[in-house]
């Protein structure tokens, strides 16, 4: 058994930059997150549909959902870039070469931003809109 698998068997995350296992790990994490994003967006869409049927104004909610989707797209792109960076030694942009650690930091920031947007904006809008429904 190699060192990566021993590392993985502990509670600590695998963090072997550039190794096949690290790439496989990140790819699976990305796939898992995509499925979770899909469920989140579907569920919110269904709530908006329900609100519409109850004659509640959903324009702001639709805009918020669009913002959430754009943040999701940004995170997906970052994961894709991260995997590419792990495959090679860096992703060359027009001005600089970005290493995988930089992209990892960007992913963490983007995920935190998304969570903040949801709890600070979208969730508040959802609850506010839902309070207008009499059932």
């Amino acid at each position, binding site marked *: *058994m*190699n060192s*990566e*698998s021993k590392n*993985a*068997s502990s*509670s600590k*995350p*695998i*963090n072997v930059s550039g190794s096949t*296992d690290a790439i*496989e*790990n*990140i790819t*699976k*994490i990305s796939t*898992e*997150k995509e*499925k*979770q*994003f899909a*469920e*989140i967006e*579907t*569920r*919110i869409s*269904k*709530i908006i*549909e*329900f*609100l519409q049927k109850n004659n509640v104004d959903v324009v702001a909610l639709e805009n918020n959902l669009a913002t959430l989707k754009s943040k999701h797209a940004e995170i997906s792109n970052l994961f894709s870039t991260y995997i590419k960076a792990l495959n090679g030694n860096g992703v060359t942009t027009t001005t600089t070469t970005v290493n995988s650690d930089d992209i*990892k930091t960007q*992913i*963490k920031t983007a*995920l*935190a931003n*998304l*969570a903040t947007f*949801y*709890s600070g904006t979208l*969730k508040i809008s*959802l*609850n506010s809109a*839902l309070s207008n*429904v009499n*059932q």
Partner: protein
Amino acid sequence: MEKREKAYLFFSIIFFLASLGIIWWIDRQEVSKQIDEQVQLTCAQRKPENDTGNKADPFIGNEIQAKQEMRADWAITTKSQAVTSIGNVDDLIQGVSSNNF
């Protein structure tokens, strides 16, 4: 070298290579299993029991996906279902925004 010795040598090499292949395959299976466990921990989330019920105990991993795929449609017809669904979205957001990697 006699014909019989050549045959022994040939089969020994084949056996050796096959053993290496089996060891490699078992190792990959083990690594893949460990990575799956790690991914499940990383993407941990609570299970939405159903659209109308209470939140269930937390659990993680492929089981979630299987349950989610069984419920392709999360249609909402009552306010309480909508409230529960928001709770489920809360849990999903918590899971998706985890960055333990």
